[in-house]
């Protein structure tokens, strides 16, 4: 496959707010079901283990007019839930047999209750993440949460989900995680060959198509993305921090890169990389998954940070690991996790003398001039400092 073909596939899926590919999968065989999940981290392999299609529900971005969604939320609540509600009440999510709401923040938590009321005939599950890191406590608690989820999905399909099914899906998702890690590593090394807008659209497509299809396209992209003779530009290398839940519009990502910033690490669709390693194969795959979350999950504001030094060090660690020169703090307006975390991260960046800029966006932000100027100036400044 050529790069253009892969990107076209990704773009078509990214733009499709009717979820045609997911609907097609559901209708291809009797009894098939799809389950939606909200950001940031949901154990989606368990949906796959139940023979169902996991469908990432990330709102409608700048491609959806909010007509009814605004009637559900006050102006001082972020844009994502009103967009999700819009998708739902307009019937676009009617093909979903249920939805999983992870413990990301109070807005998504309360949305789970709204879902129960709006769609009383659907399966709804709020999945609490463990905030105690002791395997005997938080680990046991989260394994239990996972068992409850699996039991609920089994009930929905009319047959229990087996241990072997779970183990098989964990293997598939390990493959998926490894491939995404490889794509991120490729971008880190050669950002000119892996523009973030392309990578992002491929990952967005991966949220709504069958995993096998995603793996095929993503693998093909990894193979071809360094073969078409693209040359590096004199861009600054930046880490984009804070956009782990409500996603920025694609235009904003493109604007940052076109303004002279290679994004070499980010939080976009963070659930994909929430577990930083493969889940080990085990006779008890749910406990293995729970323990991997406790021990080897990415630093995220949706989890309690035990180490008092960690936030202060995090930006320096990420900048160093990515070979970046600066940080762009780009968070959605009214996003508690990102905006409450930001001062702590910025303090660490200050201490490490890491340059940064900050802005807020909404998923439907349509004007990019301000970001172009900000990112362009930042890129120029980084280049000047680098040369000093």
């Amino acid at each position, binding site marked *: 496959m050529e790069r253009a073909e892969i990107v076209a596939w990704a773009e078509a899926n990214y733009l499709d707010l009717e979820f045609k590919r997911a609907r097609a999968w559901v209708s291809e065989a009797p009894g098939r079901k799809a389950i939606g999940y909200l950001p940031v981290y949901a154990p989606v392999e368990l949906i796959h283990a139940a023979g169902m299609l996991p469908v990432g529900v990330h709102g409608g971005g700048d491609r959806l007019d909010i007509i009814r969604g605004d009637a559900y939320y*006050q102006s001082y609540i972020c844009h994502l839930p009103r967009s999700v509600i819009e998708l739902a009440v307009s019937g676009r999510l009617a093909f979903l047999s249920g939805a999983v709401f992870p413990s990301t*923040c109070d807005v998504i*938590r*309360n949305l789970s*209750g709204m879902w129960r009321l709006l769609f009383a005939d659907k399966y709804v599950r709020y999945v*609490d993440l463990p905030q*105690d890191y002791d395997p005997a406590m938080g680990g046991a608690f989260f394994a239990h949460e996972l068992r409850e989820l699996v039991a609920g999905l089994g009930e929905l399909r009319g047959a229990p989900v087996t241990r072997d099914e779970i183990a098989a899906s964990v293997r598939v998702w390990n493959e998926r995680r490894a491939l995404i890690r490889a794509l991120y590593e490729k971008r880190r090394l050669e950002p000119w060959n892996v523009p973030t807008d392309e990578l992002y659209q491929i990952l967005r497509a991966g949220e709504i198509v069958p995993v096998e299809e995603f793996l095929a396209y993503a693998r093909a992209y990894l193979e071809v993305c360094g073969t078409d003779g693209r040359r590096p530009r004199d861009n600054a290398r930046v880490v984009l921090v804070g956009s782990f839940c409500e996603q920025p519009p694609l235009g904003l990502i493109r604007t940052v890169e076109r303004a002279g910033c290679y994004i070499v690490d980010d939080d976009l669709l963070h659930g994909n990389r929430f577990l930083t390693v493969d889940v080990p194969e085990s006779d008890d795959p749910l406990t293995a998954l729970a323990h991997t979350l406790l021990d080897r999950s990415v630093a995220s504001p949706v989890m*309690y940070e035990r180490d008092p030094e960690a936030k202060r060090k995090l930006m320096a660690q990420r900048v160093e690991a990515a070979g970046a020169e600066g940080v762009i703090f780009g968070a959605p307006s009214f996003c508690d996790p990102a905006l409450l975390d*930001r001062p702590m991260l910025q303090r660490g960046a200050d201490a490490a003398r890491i340059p940064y800029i900050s802005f807020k966006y909404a998923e439907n932000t349509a004007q990019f001039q301000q970001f172009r100027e900000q990112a362009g100036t930042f890129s120029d400044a980084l280049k000047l400092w680098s040369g000093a």
Partner: protein
Amino acid sequence: MSQAKDRSQDLQKQLIAQLYDDLADAPQTGRKVVYTFVPGNLTELIRSFDLLPVLPEINALQSGMRQKTGAYITEAEKSGHSEDVCTYVKADLGMIKAGNLGPTGRPLPKPDLLLLSYTGCYTFMKWFELLREEYGCPVVMLHVPYQEAGHMTATHRQYVVDQIRDKLIPALEEVSGKRYDEARLKEMLARSARMEDDLVHVFQSAKNRPSPIDAWFGGVYYIGPMFTAFRGTPEGEEYYRLLRQEVDERVRLGLGPITPDGVLQEEKFRVVVEGPPNWTSFREFWKMFTDEGAVAVASTYTKVGGTYDFGFRHDPARPLETLAEYCSECYTNRNLPTRIDMLARYVEEYQADGFLINSVKSCNSFSAGQLMILREVERRTGRPGGFIESDLVDPRYFSAANIKNRLESYFQMLAARRAGVATTSLEVHP
């Protein structure tokens, strides 16, 4: 309205003032201090170690009532905190920068331990991560799972009990230098249960006509000792016994609630209120209700530190289990359908004319979903809902004229509706 003041009000003030004096004296007396949150506060356990609790939300609201928070919030925003996030947090951080003066004007002590009771509010987690940076003191996390299915499961109870037993108690032992004393804890829990009986009795007195209490504006005074530091203490028990006696006497005499302007002479409207009050214009806000003869007969905010009126009591026979259950039962840890059930019950049981939602910008735990609550409670009860917007402690978000207009319109609508119902009734049954 006639002027009135009950003895319990004086006692309440004395209790709170004494607590702040004890806190201010802590560096001299050597008493250790634990910061924690109102929802899921484990006051009995903390005090069984002779530790003093500090509730940062209470500090923030007290600062709000004293008109300090505008400057505190500005200070926090200047140092990089977003205008979009919780103003309790920013007021607290600004207060620290300004010398950490408590409501009595004396400095609050630094925490020896941050007890992060993670119950019903995401922001709590960030708040104590931020305070940890300010104070450099240890944090102990107590993760209380959300009641996603509307009740606490046995597994969740055990998870919380395990954390209390194996994480929290050792941390309290270390900071206090004392051993866990279960007999003492049980004694305090038994006292808590008696206090809770009295508090519920007081709240349920609002089923009378006229209601002898205002269960929102007035209610925040009634919950003060219970939600801060006095649950399980002899002085707390004395306060609630006295309050109950006074409220019973008001019922016997057919008196309305005491307000800042005296006893409300005529109860025109009975409303249920969802959401916290605004603190920076608390008195002005309350007056908007009393001017209309409106009384809050039940409120959800007064349940953030425990939903005792649905049956929960601390059980001294099961000390750690009961603490775990207490945390889980706090209002904001309950899922949205359960909250709607509560509100609908309040509207019916307290014979309310309608219900009002005060949606505060700061608090997504309360606010996200309130427009749906509005529709659902209206649908179930047939009683009209009103919706106003303000904030907890950011004076920039209290628009008195707008709120007054909305409230007046709402109460006019209730009056018109009542008149309409009466007319219909007369037509049907001449």
